[in-house]
């Protein structure tokens, strides 16, 4: 069955389905019960599943993650909501020191099937700490899987995959696209979670992005099509592992690669893609790999964020520079 819904409600539907399928799935986070979360992603779930399965937590992020580990050891599958991206850092130690490493530490004896949902990225005019993109920080740590949907359909399926995974999954939700509507087919899942998808085919340049910038990347491709250049757009979807094969195959056809993300360029996922794709496709490249992203500054006050966030023009600028080589 296919229906149209906003991305946030697709996550709600995915959570609901996962909770119906498995009584061990529990949700925990700040304000997720009666309020349904500050973005209403868990709206109605506490009413239907009760306070034991949709838990309003004390305001302590490390505590939320740490107690979720304990619940996972007890046999539950906790799904955590971190209220905003930059509120995750009090929990950083529990995530990288415990969540990521317990499976390895116990020689594979203990699985930690915890999902950490993180609304991330800017563009919503919020105060400091509400607009960051820390996904690369977590992808850097072995033991975590990191994924980010860009469409309602993917959001519905990928949240369920994340919950079913026996590994811990960081689930980054593109918050400024929460209200973007899309078709969700609840029968046909489409591409596997840890694969990248070519969302628009092209022959002249490969533009890779994920999460909130995928719609922008598609706009870039449309703009270039008007000028007679064919841009191929890849939605990465999975940030750990990264499906380098799909990107490599594309670049070997187009000879050019531009990577765009909201996160800072320095030591970001674009850098990793540039290095790996250069290694794999050196003789196919017609231009150096270019990156577009945030600056090496704290996320700016919202009146300046339009300068910080890569937009249509900044990505077009990089695309033009690449094509000019």
């Amino acid at each position, binding site marked *: 069955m296919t229906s149209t819904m906003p991305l946030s409600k697709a996550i709600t539907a995915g959570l609901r389905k996962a909770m119906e399928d498995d009584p061990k799935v*529990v949700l925990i986070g700040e304000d997720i019960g009666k309020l349904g979360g500050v973005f209403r992603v868990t709206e109605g779930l506490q009413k239907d599943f009760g306070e*034991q399965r949709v838990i309003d*937590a*004390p305001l*302590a992020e*490390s*505590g939320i*993650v*740490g*107690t*979720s*580990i*304990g*619940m*996972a*050891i*007890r*046999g*539950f599958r906790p799904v955590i909501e971190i209220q905003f991206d930059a509120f995750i850092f*009090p929990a950083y*130690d*529990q995530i990288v*020191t*415990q969540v990521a*490493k*317990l*499976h*390895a*530490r*116990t*020689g*594979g*004896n*203990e*699985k930690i099937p915890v999902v950490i949902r993180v609304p991330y990225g800017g563009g919503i005019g919020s105060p400091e700490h509400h607009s960051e993109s820390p996904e690369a920080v977590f992808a850097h740590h*072995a*033991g975590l*899987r990191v994924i980010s949907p860009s469409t309602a359909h993917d959001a519905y399926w990928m949240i369920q995959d994340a919950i079913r*995974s*026996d*590994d811990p999954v960081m689930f980054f939700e593109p918050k400024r696209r929460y209200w973007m509507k899309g078709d969700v087919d609840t029968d046909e899942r489409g591409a596997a979670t*840890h694969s990248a998808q070519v969302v628009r085919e092209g022959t002249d340049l490969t533009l890779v992005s994920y999460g909130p910038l995928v719609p922008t990347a598609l706009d870039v491709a449309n703009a270039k099509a008007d000028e007679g250049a064919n841009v191929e757009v890849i939605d990465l979807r999975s940030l*750990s*592992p*990264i*499906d*380098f094969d799909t990107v490599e195959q594309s670049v070997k056809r187009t000879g050019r690669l531009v990577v765009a993300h909201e996160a800072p360029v320095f030591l970001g996922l674009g850098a990793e893609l540039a290095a790996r794709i250069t290694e794999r496709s050196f003789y196919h490249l017609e231009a150096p790999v270019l990156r577009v992203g945030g600056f090496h500054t704290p996320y700016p006050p919202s009146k300046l964020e339009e300068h910080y966030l890569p937009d249509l023009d900044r990505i077009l600028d990089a695309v033009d520079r690449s094509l000019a080589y």
Partner: protein
Amino acid sequence: MTSEISAGARAKRQAGPHMIQMLTPEGERVSSGEYDVFAAELDTQDLFGFYRDMVLVRRVDAEGQALQRQGQLGLWAPLLGQEAAQIGLGRALRKQDFVFPTYREHGVAWTRGIDPTELLGIFRGQSHGGWDPQANRFHTYTIVIGSQVLHAAGYGMGIQMDGDVGTGDIDRDSIAVACFGDGASSQGDVSEGLTFAGAFNAPVLFYCQNNQWAISEPTSIQTPTPLYQRGKGFGIPGIRVDGNDVLATYAVARASADSIRAGNGPLLIEAFTYRMGAHTTADDPSKYRSDAETEAWAAKDPIVRLRRYLENQGVTADEFAAVDAEADQMAARIRAACVEMAPPPPAEMWTHVYSEPHALVDEERDAYLAYLDSFADVEEHA
């Protein structure tokens, strides 16, 4: 801040009130009110069992120390002096309870059936924690102090969600135990663990072994108030017990575990004890504490006091000698097992990073193993 006046004021507040004790350092049995009922359940054989436990784990500890000095272990964290604090707790628990330890819980590990060679393996660098936590309901050692307290709180919340508390069935009702020390008590995660357990009334026993020293820092640097009071603001009552008195640690842990099991909510125990050895084999306590202090605590040795009591109860020299002989045998066994441990194969590094395949892990493993294989011919020719 470091003036004598301030240090004196701190010491006074630290001293705290009454501490539950049932055996004096001289081995005399003293009454302890409500806790006597738990001691009364134990006959001489049971107490002799505790004695055996303590002698054997002290021997494990001595082996760990010696093996490190011989270069067989990279490091060892001695438990010397904390045997009663750990054996009393461990023997008070039931099979279905789940313990979350730090890295010095060799005595609790013993009571949960963890073979000491597993502990040696960690400090030798064979693994980060080889046992299956579910098999013995004893979690892996936690080195970042305090983290495990949250895991215990969450596990306790899980017990609640399963309805395995307060049913009246003692084989079903379960508790989670958070072991931590005076140093860890300053970590935010410990306070958050108390917050969650308190707010959800989760069946968690917070068991703080105050061994007076966090490496070189005395407990007075962590807190000006006695640690047994730490839970008060979180709605978690606490009690201080003589951590060098195995009868008292057992009785207080039993009483607390029974109460938590019955659904009365979390409790905190401060076991007042002493780290007689160094923090680890890399530490030198002579730099920060006096011989007088160590000697004063040596006079409160947990094994000596129980032995004195048991001698008065008629346990014979032969029976004590038999425990020593058993310790010798065990020491020989674990020493041999330790020395024989071969380094794990390189591929082991990648085996358990994820439980399901991960492309990058597979790629890096294959590339490195192929690199290693490229030396095979060279070695054959050499």
